[in-house]
């Protein structure tokens, strides 16, 4: 198995995630640009699709494994795999070993898992990136996904990155560590509970007075942002922007 050091690599893989591919491509482009600007060569295997998490979390393990197996085959070089999502990174890092336990290709799955980094984790811990804020003063709030916080344990990384931006003030919402209520298929299977959770989350975020909400996970952003939009359209509330951390960092730091 390859040994990943925390030394700055020349080349990394980028796993863009299906949600970013289809709904939030700008987050993926910005993440690649941030990596490239730091002098890293980025490889984006075009045959990549999805990490398999939706099926895994729904109990359809064979179906998840089939999709995961197709990804594992694409990331064979002994270089880090950067993922702009705590949730998908958590799937590959934590759950691939479970999903492939006892399978013929278990070793390959473990190897991939050992090379996975969530984007903000990589920017801070490996690249030790230094950012210069070129943007106008702004007050934002940060929502850290549960997977980034608890599964990957990287909640502090996004804060460290934002802390480098001089003109960005991070406001603290109440119940910050609480789930936004997305939870993948949870939002569909238990829509009433999910709705109650996102109602509270958006209320607490609004109450900070922030004009923008930043997260490292597009699943949460789709949930929170969708609720903000709905509230602006149907409840006469102030519109509020949501943005992925990569896009926010890139926009504020490229000249």
């Amino acid at each position, binding site marked *: 198995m390859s040994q990943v050091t925390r030394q700055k690599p020349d080349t990394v893989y980028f796993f863009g995630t299906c949600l970013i591919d289809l709904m939030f491509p700008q987050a993926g482009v910005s993440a690649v640009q941030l990596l490239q600007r730091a002098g890293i060569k980025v490889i984006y295997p075009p*045959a990549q*699709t999805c990490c398999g998490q939706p099926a895994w979390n729904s109990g359809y393990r064979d179906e998840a494994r089939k999709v995961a197996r197709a990804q594992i085959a694409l990331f064979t070089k002994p270089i880090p795999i950067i993922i702009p999502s705590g949730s998908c990174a958590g799937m590959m890092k934590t759950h691939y070993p479970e999903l492939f336990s006892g399978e013929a290709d278990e070793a390959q799955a473990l190897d991939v898992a050992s090379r996975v980094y969530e984007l903000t984790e990589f920017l801070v811990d490996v690249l030790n990136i230094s950012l210069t804020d070129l943007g106008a003063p702004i007050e934002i709030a940060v929502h850290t996904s549960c997977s980034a916080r608890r599964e990957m344990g990287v909640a502090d990384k996004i804060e460290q990155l934002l802390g480098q931006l001089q003109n960005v003030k991070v406001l603290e919402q109440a119940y910050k560590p609480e789930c936004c209520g997305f939870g993948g298929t949870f939002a569909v299977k238990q829509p009433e509970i999910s709705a109650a959770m996102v109602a509270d989350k958006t209320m607490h975020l609004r109450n900070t007075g922030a004009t923008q909400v930043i997260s490292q996970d597009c699943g949460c952003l789709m949930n929170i942002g969708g609720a903000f939009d709905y509230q602006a359209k149907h409840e006469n509330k102030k519109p509020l922007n949501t943005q992925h951390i990569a896009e926010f960092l890139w926009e504020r730091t490229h000249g």
Partner: protein
Amino acid sequence: MAKPSEFRIQVDQALGKTEVRAHFRKAMDTLMTNRRNQFPDNAELQRLRDQAQVIRANALSKLPELLEQLESNLTRNGIHVHWAETTDEANDIVLKIMQKHNATWMIKGKSMVSEEMGLNHFLESKGIEALESDLGEFIIQLDGETPSHIIMPAIHKSKEQIAQLFNEKFPDIPYTEDVDTLTRTARDILREKFYNAPVGLSGVNFAVAETGTLCLVENEGNGRMSTTIPPVHIAVTGIEKVVEKLSDIPPLLSILPRSATGQPITTYFNMISSPRKKGEKDGPEEVHLVLLDNGRSRIYSDPELLATLRCIRCGACINHCPVYVRIGGHSYGTVYPGPIGTILEPQKSGLKVHGELVQASSLCGACGEVCPVRIPIPSIINRLRYEGVRQDGGSALDAGSKRKPLEAITWKAWSWAASHPSVYNLGSTVATQVRNLVPHNLGAWTSVRTAPAVADKTLHQQLKALGVDHE
């Protein structure tokens, strides 16, 4: 559209009760803060969790032997041991003891296993009254309810509701919303009962195999009264509550109340080793322990699901659950609510009955993060989702019963597309081209959110255009 399940209906009703929800939120906030304050040093907390996990896992790893040792030591100490595979058997054992002593009623300390047995109802059907003496249990019994939380059974009630309830049930006592006075009222009523009860019943927090000791953690002294004043004491517990050694108790006792209510220690800690001995002035003349299986052996037989049985019933997972805090304990329709109920109940009663509960989790991980014995609750939820739809037997009760043909075919199709890049890319490209045709009404999602928008160019397309390397 399918008819909403009983669970969804209950959830919907609970979510509509904004006052109760606000009260619940406040109560859970207090519990979370109290717990946090008990563990100022995270490294120390993690060390304690490791220790507690090892103790419980060790006990489970030799459960059959420890249970035999426990039985033999209890018997040597003069405590009668009874085994019950089902709740019916457990109820019958209790009934026979009551009949043997011609007892027409009993006083109860708090016991979730007795709730599991439906003991109160069972005894009532036999003309025997079971009076709850834990204040929370006393309150909900007055109102004909079941516990909404495993350690704070009446947490769903406000003091105003309790005041009204007392006023209704005890009209001779002047109306008051003063908590101390209400407590005093219950205490006065119960004190008299303790003196006269022919039988006292309690649960057990830990049963020590090495010494044959039953440990009981409590705050109100009602546990001590129920187990020492009546001439007969019946303890009921699950077979998983055994620990190996007496020295296992201090670490567990250290982490349990701190995780539960955020207390450094409970007011009372009882260690019951035998009935009253010759020359002793108090204590029951007869002590019984009923060890209940009720599905635990089945859980025990699976190496992953086994972790469920490590639980020491502190309720920390419940207190920290974003789902529980919004829907409350009764919505679950189970004895054990919250995350622990979500994994325990479907295993105990089968996925057919309570399988939906494993869907009522966003897998946020807050429960697993606070569990003092490190039960990987989210992983077990995931596993039970798998058990629900797997087709190859499985080990959970009613495995495979939650599989729906349409859903299964959808995942198969998804799996095929996402493992064939050409199909996936064709699909995503088509999606970008028809992006304006995405319906604005996506059922439940769009009842509180706008529909998500497909980008005009996928990341695949954009990175290709930017010349990002392919390999």
